[in-house]
C-alpha cells in the first residue's frame, strides 16, 4: 500500500492504493466519488471515462499510481460552482439524453473532451468521438442532440421548447 496524491476536480486528495488499484477504484472506493461508473471493467463501454491532465481516458484501464500528481476531472466536477447542472449536463436533461443514466457520466466526460478541442462538432464528428461510449438505452439519438445543443448549435429534429 502506498499513499497516492492527485488533484481531483481542483482539490488535492490522497488515498491508500495498491499497485493494482485502478483509477476507477481509487475514485469510487478510495475517495467515495461514485459518479464515475464501471460498466464493463473490460475497456469497452466508456462509462468510466474521466479526464487526466485534460485528456479523456477509461479510468478502469489506468492504474491510480499512473495518475499520481495528475489533474483529474470527473463528472462531479462538471456541475457549476453553485451545484446546478453544467451546460453539458443540462443539455442531456433538456434533450432526454439519458434513460437509465448508467452511461451518462462517461458520455458527459467524452462530450466535454470533444467540445474542448472542437467547440462546434458536426453530427458525424460527435458520433465518431463517441465510438468508445456504449449506451444500452437511448439509441444515441438524444445524446447526439444534447451535445449539439450544448455546443450552441441547432439541434436536428428538436421539438421547439416553449
Amino acid at each position, binding site marked *: 500500500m502506498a499513499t497516492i496524491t492527485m488533484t481531483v476536480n481542483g482539490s488535492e486528495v490522497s488515498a491508500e492504493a495498491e*499497485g493494482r488499484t485502478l483509477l476507477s477504484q481509487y475514485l469510487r472506493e478510495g475517495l467515495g466519488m461514485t459518479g464515475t461508473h464501471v460498466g464493463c471493467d473490460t475497456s469497452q463501454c466508456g462509462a468510466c471515462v474521466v479526464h487526466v491532465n485534460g485528456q*479523456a*481516458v477509461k479510468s478502469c*484501464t489506468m*492504474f491510480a*499510481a499512473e495518475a499520481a500528481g495528475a489533474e483529474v476531472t470527473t463528472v462531479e466536477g462538471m456541475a457549476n460552482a453553485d451545484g446546478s447542472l453544467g451546460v453539458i449536463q443540462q443539455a442531456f436533461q433538456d434533450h432526454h439524453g439519458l434513460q437509465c443514466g448508467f452511461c451518462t457520466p462517461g458520455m458527459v466526460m467524452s462530450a466535454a473532451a470533444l467540445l474542448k478541442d472542437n467547440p462546434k462538432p458536426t453530427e458525424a464528428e460527435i458520433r465518431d*468521438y463517441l465510438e*468508445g461510449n456504449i449506451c444500452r438505452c437511448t439509441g444515441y439519438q438524444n445524446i447526439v442532440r444534447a451535445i449539439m445543443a450544448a455546443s450552441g448549435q441547432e439541434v436536428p429534429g428538436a421539438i421547439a421548447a416553449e
Partner: protein
Amino acid sequence: MHNFDFVSPSTVEEAAAALQGDEAQALGGGQTLIPTMKQRLAAPTTLVSLTGIAGMSGVSSDGGALTIGGATTHATVADQAGAYPALAALAGGIGDPAVRNRGTIGGSLANNDPSACYPSAVLGSGATVVTNTREIAADDFFDGMFTTALDEGEIITAVRFPVPQAASYQKFLQPASRFALTGVFVAQYADGVRVAVTGASEGGVFRWSEAEAALSADFSAGALDGLSVSADGMIGDLHGTPEYRAHLIKVLTKRAVSAAA
C-alpha cells in the same frame, strides 16, 4: 488481478535495469496489458511504467524519415505525424479516443496482435524498430501472432519510418472490438511498392508479394485484377471465414491503391 509493485523510472537505463527482475514487465498505455492482467493471463510481480520516460514520447521528422518515440500515444501520432499522412490517419482510427489517449506504438508492436493496425504500417513501410539494445528491421521483427523478435525485457524506444511517395491504410472495421477484421497498408517508394496485410493470417501480419510486384510495375488498382489470395492459413472465426478474409485483402488493397494514387 494479482498485485504487483509499480515502478515509474525516468530513464531508459533505469527501466531496462528494473525489467531484469524476475517476472517484471513493461507497461505502456496499459490498453492491452491491463485487461490481460484482469483476466490473470498476465501476472507480473513488477510493472515498469515507460510513459514517464522523457525522450520516449514524441514525433520528429528528419529528411525522409519520421521517428516516433516508443511510448508515444496513438493520439499524439494522429495529431503530429502530418509528414506521413497515412500513418497519422491509421493512428487516428485505432479504437476510440480514450484508447488513443493512452495506447502507445511500442505497446502495440510488442503485443503484435494479429488484428492490430500498427504492425501493417511498420511492415508496409519497411520501418526500423529501435530498442534499448539494437535496431530491428520490420521484416525481421514480426514472428507470428503475438510473437516478435524482442528479447525478454527489451524496450522499444522508437520506430523510424521512411516516408513514402504515396501510401494508404484501409481498415475493414470489426465494429465490436474496433480492431481490423482485415486491414491493408500500401506504400509506394522510389524502389518499389510494399503491401502489408493485418487481421487476416493465422501467421499475423504479412507482405503480399504478388501484389507488391504488380504494383511496382503499375501503381493502379487495375494492376491487381488478375491476382487472388488463397484462403489457406487465413483466420476463420465468427466474424468472417478464411475465404471472406482472403477476398477482403484484394478489395482493400485496391481501395488503398486508389486512395494513395
